[in-house]
């Protein structure tokens, strides 16, 4: 069997394990889906308050800002459904010293820890996010071109790559500082800023949010692409930032795994 085929099968096994776990805790699944409704409401309230007070904010109208929230929600489902559960699992392994067992397995360790756990309930977020995108385009009379949709999809894929790379960086950090119960909290609280259109931020904040924590690239650029107003410069920035993060994430992982000394010493 080829290498790729073997890893695809492994992925299938890991996903099936997560699905089986979810089937055991069905009540939790439905509660989590219910929480999504509540969470969406909480995301929208500040935005509604803002657009009650002003018609446009930094050139963004309500439907356009809603596009950004839509992409934010879609990415949030990826984060909560595929990335964060595994992150929790790794931090747990590092704390207990059981990461050693994973490192000993005959497969790429980064692949194994990245696919350790999925949370299927987050499909609800995905549906809600897509719904928001459609609704925003409907009320804002935004008719994207084929190229715009393609660009938005590409940017979204890149954003998933960036999220994943940030995740790898956080996990690498957990090798250095063991007492990190709140790493996931850090992760989600920083990501929260992505719900606002990036062009609201000026000066240092704008640079930070484009290059250091590229939230603008992740949620604002896809929204701009759907509106067909993404400039060539922004597109180039997105490609550059995405490539840097993906390459950087893998590099840091390889280095930190090399220096990892287990809890036993």
């Amino acid at each position, binding site marked *: 069997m080829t290498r790729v085929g073997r890893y695809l099968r492994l992925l299938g096994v890991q996903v099936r394990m997560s699905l089986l776990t979810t089937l055991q*805790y069905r009540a*939790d699944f439905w*509660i*989590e889906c219910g*929480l999504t409704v*509540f*969470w969406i409401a*909480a995301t929208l*309230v*500040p935005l509604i*308050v*803002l657009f*009650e*007070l*002003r018609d446009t*904010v*930094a050139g963004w109208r309500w439907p356009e800002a809603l596009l950004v929230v839509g992409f934010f929600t879609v990415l949030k489902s990826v984060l909560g459904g595929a990335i964060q559960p595994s992150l929790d699992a790794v931090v747990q392994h590092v704390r207990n010293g059981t990461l050693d067992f994973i490192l000993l397995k005959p497969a790429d360790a980064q692949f194994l820890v990245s696919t350790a756990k999925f949370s299927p309930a987050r499909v609800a977020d995905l549906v809600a996010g897509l719904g928001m995108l459609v609704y925003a385009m409907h009320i804002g009379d935004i008719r994207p071109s084929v190229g715009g949709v393609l660009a938005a999809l590409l940017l979204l894929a890149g954003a998933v790559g960036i999220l994943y790379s940030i995740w790898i960086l956080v996990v690498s*950090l957990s090798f*250095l*500082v063991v*007492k*990190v*119960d*709140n*790493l996931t*909290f*850090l992760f989600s*609280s*920083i990501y*929260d*800023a992505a719900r*606002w259109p990036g062009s*609201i*931020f*000026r000066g240092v*904040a704008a640079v930070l949010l484009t290059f250091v924590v590229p939230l603008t690239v992740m949620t604002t650029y896809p929204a701009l692409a759907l509106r067909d107003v993404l400039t060539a410069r922004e597109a180039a920035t997105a490609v550059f930032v995405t490539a840097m993060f993906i390459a950087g994430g893998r590099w840091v992982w390889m280095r930190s795994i090399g220096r990892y000394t287990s809890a036993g010493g």
Partner: protein
Amino acid sequence: MIRAIPTMLRIGFAEAVAYRAEMVVWVLSYTMPLVMLALWSAVAADGPVQGYGQADFAAYFVTALVVRMMVAAWVVWELNFEIKQGRLAARLLRPMHPLLHFATMNLAALPMRTAFAIPVVVIGFALGGADLVTHDPVQWLLVVVLLFLAWVMTFLVQALVGTLAFFWESSLALFDLYMTAYVVCSGYVMPLDLVPEPFASVIDVLPFRYQLSVPIEAILGRITVAETLQAVGVQLAWVAGLFLVVMLTWRAGVRRFAAFGG
């Protein structure tokens, strides 16, 4: 048991000093007010919003950052971890109530953690923030009480959700729910004065604003001494209610925990 508290506080402080890296992570996760500051400043650039100009927003969110750090608790993660791993058993053997133990450790770590906010406060004052805070000494005394009670409320809510781990595998999902509501309703992302009806009256009856926005408004002199006193009363009522519920759940939970055989 009371005599042990000063020692516990010392240990807690030493631990806070020892785990500096963890603290940096912690501080970074509290930067949301700065993001909101950037956002609302941009909004206020075309003129004040409901009486909030750019300087008012700056004062509000800098204060929010500091208050949030001062009333922080993290017992929900500690409890969740210890209950699931069975480590709580060791704590139960000690003569001190585990929750009191967590509380003293938490309080002791706060000065060190809040120290990170000092540069922010200094810069804020240097940029003219001193004129925007209250100059009434009575109000400041009340602020201390408000802050302490806000911390107790935060701690008790977290202790409650943490205790639920005795009964429910994914009780942390409930904490996510709580945090989501907290962020919107506590004045963390916007001054509550900006919130229109019908949201405003809902927020009024919820506990969240007493954990954050009320202390901020008191510091900024946006509420009178009489209103502050009233807020202290509401806080006390919440603390009493939460304390009762936490104790009841705790007792029921420990009984279950023992049955685990852990």
